[in-house]
């Protein structure tokens, strides 16, 4: 639904003429000319590096308690961003927290994209009752407020990274399926699809090798937006206390533990909030930039 406008506005895809490497390079050059995409990419790369290098660059172990620091938990030379209410170094926890988000979010979004693409391709390609079934079930899933669904499921089955990934995959797949279905309905009438049909290619080949590659423009933009949303969701789940189990650092959980002490120690919740906001902003700027780039085609 979010992406409907995006899709409407993205230029009709054409079969790629150049090799994949040259095409990717050209895309990359265009990212360089677009400042929202550049800033977004810079922010995302920063957090990816932070996540990869967390064990090397974080000054303390993420769960180590520095009881001496509790006397003055504010940012200091020993703890650049201060410590939390248990004397744990906030900078280290934020760096390690980036690992969690940047591991869980892409896997969940990839899962949703894979399942959603498959369902959307089938609905759009076969139409008829398959389309009806997939679309109706998707409508039912989408009509339910997801946050309440998450609360029920995660409170029932306990929350682990795997459960969060499964839940996000299942609830986000219908949206992606809807987008892919729309594109497939349009693309299935194209000449190159008809040509493939006449060559006697299998339905699977046509769906995955002819239609899907030509739908990649809107899907890549959607992937970035979806990463942003998923980052928010993971943060929200942590904040509500149904995210990843403690004590492992998780940005939303860090805010949950400390926002009650905001009148005394505002830095404890402000820094994790800034971290999660900046990452989402990065993903969204990247999405805006990529959309502008694909519009210019």
């Amino acid at each position, binding site marked *: *639904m*979010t992406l409907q*406008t995006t899709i*409407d*506005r993205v230029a009709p895809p054409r079969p790629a003429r150049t090799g994949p490497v040259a095409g990717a390079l050209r895309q990359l050059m265009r990212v360089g000319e677009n400042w*929202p995409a550049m800033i977004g990419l810079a922010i995302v790369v920063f957090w990816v590096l932070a996540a990869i290098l967390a064990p090397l660059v974080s000054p303390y172990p993420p769960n180590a308690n520095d009881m001496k620091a509790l006397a003055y938990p504010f940012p200091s030379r020993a703890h650049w961003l201060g410590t939390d209410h248990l004397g744990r170094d906030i900078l280290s926890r934020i760096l390690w927290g980036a690992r969690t988000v940047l591991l869980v979010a892409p896997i969940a979004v990839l899962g949703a994209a894979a399942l959603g693409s498959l369902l959307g391709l089938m609905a759009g390609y076969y139409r008829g009752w398959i389309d009806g079934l997939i679309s109706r079930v998707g*409508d*039912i899933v989408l*009509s*339910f*407020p*997801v*946050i*309440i669904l998450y*609360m*029920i*499921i*995660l*409170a*029932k*089955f*306990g929350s682990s990274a795997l459960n969060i990934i499964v839940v996000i995959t299942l609830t986000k797949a219908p949206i992606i399926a809807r987008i892919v279905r729309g594109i497939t309905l349009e693309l299935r009438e194209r000449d190159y699809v008809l040509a493939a049909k006449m060559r006697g290619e299998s339905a699977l080949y046509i769906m995955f090798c002819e239609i899907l590659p030509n739908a990649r423009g809107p899907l890549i933009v959607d992937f970035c937006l979806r990463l*942003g949303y998923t980052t*928010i969701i993971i*943060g*929200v789940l942590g*904040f*509500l*206390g*149904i995210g990843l189990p403690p004590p492992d650092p998780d940005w*939303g959980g860090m*805010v*949950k533990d400390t*926002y009650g002490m*905001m*009148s005394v120690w*505002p830095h404890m*919740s*402000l820094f994790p*909030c*800034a971290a*999660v*906001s900046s990452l*989402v*902003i990065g*993903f*969204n*700027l990247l999405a*805006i930039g990529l959309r502008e780039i694909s519009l210019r085609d």
Partner: protein
Amino acid sequence: MLRFFGKHALFMVVTLVAVSFLVFALNELSPGDVARKELGAYATQEQVDLLRQRLGLDRPVVVRYVEYLGKLFTGDLGYSQRFKVPVADIIFDRLRNTGLLAAVSFAVIVPLSMLLGVVAGMREGSVIDRGITMFATLAASVPEFAMGVFLASVFVVWLGVLPGTATLLSQTGGWSIPAQLVLPVAVIVLYDMGYVVSMIRASMVEVMQRPYIRTAVLKGMSFPRVILGHAVRNAMINPVTVIMLQINYLVAGVVVVETVFAYPGFGRMMLEAALFKDIALIEAGALVAVFVCVLTQILSDLAYMALDPRIRA
């Protein structure tokens, strides 16, 4: 018209039944039960079994599901183990509170995002357009809890001009209820508006490229008249669905804001019920949430028909 309602009513019933059964089944599959939670870790197995028997938890799922449906029709929503009151007592109270929050937020979001969306979309690519688009993106990028923390740290901790909690009790630090509502509403509006603004903007951009707008401009009509007389109404047709869907989010999705500001709303009640495995309350809450969703879908279809005479036939 009749077919329209018939189709929607059917979809509504199917959805309600599907969701109620799913939630019911989920509760059955979950490890750990209410009786154990209720009595604590030190209760003996006999005590737990006795309570399970008294609550009727020892009978098969399907039997209890059918029984549950039967009770629903008589208006009996069950008894909340968490709050120790009948579900109907607490759920409508909480819904009313969330309704207040939702109504105030909705009343701010709609005119504001219409204004911003139309102004941004009427001149695509202008400085104002880019500014508004960027603002909308940034506002929608900040998670609600982070927005709550940011706003609270400025207005509560630093300036001290607003209360940090909205418990709706008049004795909370002497703040009036309108003052308590300011921050929760601000967070909801900022987070939610970005999305609505970008939808309205996109629709407006599209309308401005239509031939009838060019005709109006070419025949010398003033720009404000072109916008107000020709463009706005047509630009609102597509976003109206999106706008109506916000009601859905406002009623069921504001759990984060309610948690940040300790607001006694529906979402926070659901969170507590889920954490406590309060089956009756989760069940009823899920049904109410779905009911609201399907209702807003019907409302949005109606609004769509009212705005676009072409599909009325």
